């Protein structure tokens, strides 16, 4: 059996070739502690570039000391260095490719309104200013008005006349509710209308296509919508 007997076990070939190269671990340990002190003290000066060097420059030095001496990468075969380097290079590639979209808040023909607003809000709060509830997070403020909102959002399925004959609703099964139908009102009360607008059709065993709107509208606004829906009630 032609096995590579010399190359296994605790003291295999991989070790033998760097036997005798062991660094003075104690010295490296105390160097690391010294560097730690420097990195903690660095920000005391309050100068940005000193902090950057003392924090990240020293982190690199420390990591390098640990990797080379404690992990013995200095004496490892080249192949291990290659694939560890490859993984780091890939991360640099990833950050490089993604930062154009994620780090920046505006670019060619686009801007990240929500992020810009979040930055402004946050900086204002940090400066101790009154936090103004920004409307910018909402893409457009068309003002709330129950009939308008019904026409904007609900009418595509329920129809502007509330008859369940909106363009998108024509092909749905089950059909969108017809608010002009007396049978519809026979078994429903206001609490149920509010509940369905808030939590969606699935919450009462009806079509899940009717989603809950609690994320978009306040309870007060949903009440107004329910009021508007009740205006379709025959004889109302």
């Amino acid at each position, binding site marked *: 059996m032609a096995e590579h007997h010399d190359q296994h076990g605790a003291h295999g070939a991989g070790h033998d070739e760097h036997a005798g190269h062991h660094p003075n671990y104690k010295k490296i340990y105390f160097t690391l502690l010294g560097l730690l002190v420097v990195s903690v003290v660095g920000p005391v000066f309050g100068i940005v570039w000193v902090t950057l060097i003392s924090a990240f420059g020293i982190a690199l030095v420390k990591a390098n000391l640990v990797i080379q001496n404690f992990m013995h990468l200095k004496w490892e075969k080249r192949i291990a260095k290659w694939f560890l380097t490859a993984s780091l290079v890939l991360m640099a590639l990833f950050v490089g490719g993604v930062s154009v979209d994620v780090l920046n808040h505006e670019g060619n023909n686009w801007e990240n309104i929500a992020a810009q607003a979040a930055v402004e809000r946050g900086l204002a709060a940090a400066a101790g200013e009154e936090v103004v509830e920004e409307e910018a997070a909402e893409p*457009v403020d068309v003002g709330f008005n129950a009939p308008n909102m019904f026409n*904007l959002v609900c009418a595509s399925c329920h129809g502007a006349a509330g008859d369940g004959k909106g363009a998108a609703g024509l092909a749905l099964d089950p059909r969108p509710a017809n608010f002009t139908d007396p049978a519809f009102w026979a078994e429903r009360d206001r609490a149920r209308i509010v509940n369905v607008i808030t939590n969606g059709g699935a919450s009462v065993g009806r079509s899940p296509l009717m989603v809950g709107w609690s994320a978009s509208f306040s309870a007060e606004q949903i009440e107004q919508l329910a009021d508007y829906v009740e205006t379709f009630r025959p004889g109302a």
Partner: protein
Amino acid sequence: MIPQASTYAASIDNVILLIAVLVGFWFIAAEGMFFWLIWRFRAKEGVKSEYLEGHEPHVKKWITWPHSLVLVCDVFIIIGAVQVWYNVKQRLPDDADATIRIIGQQWAWTFQHPGADNDLDTADDIFTVDDLHVEVDRTYIFQLQSRDVLHSFSVPVFRIKQDAIPGRSIMGWFEPTQTGEYDVQCVEICGIGHGVMAARIHIEDAQQHADWIRSASTGTAQ
């Protein structure tokens, strides 16, 4: 193919055609060679296969030459694709006639038209759901936004398509070249109602468009 209804639809179709010709050539050449070799070198009694490393220069050229030619074809495709891309996505026309805002939400499109004064975000803006009205031969810039999840605004006859991302405002442009009424689709899956998130685009001539603005402003539209 479906009709070309925007100024850049033809250029996008031309890139597709360019690619079709180039890769079609390679496809036919490769498949032809492939089946010919299978037929030519089918097992015959008493004939032993040839012993070829594939690294000899006189045979290796059968790989290296096609391979260089593929690279040349790639260069043509890159040039064609990037030109069109620049025109459609990267630049915005300086002299746009109007700006509209398109807002996606589960599962409807809201279109904010500039209205009679042709300025967005004024009191006479016209909001419609699932019906976009534009005038033929005018250049439009659109601002694409989303209220909840990702949507994608696609007008197949224009060949335009752009995702809407919540929190962002993404700009694009188009210029319709023929009147008619066409499909607008959401093409990024956006939940249960993705399949019903359809809208219509109405491309009107100047007279019809003015009529529509007038009727919509007085509240009789839709």
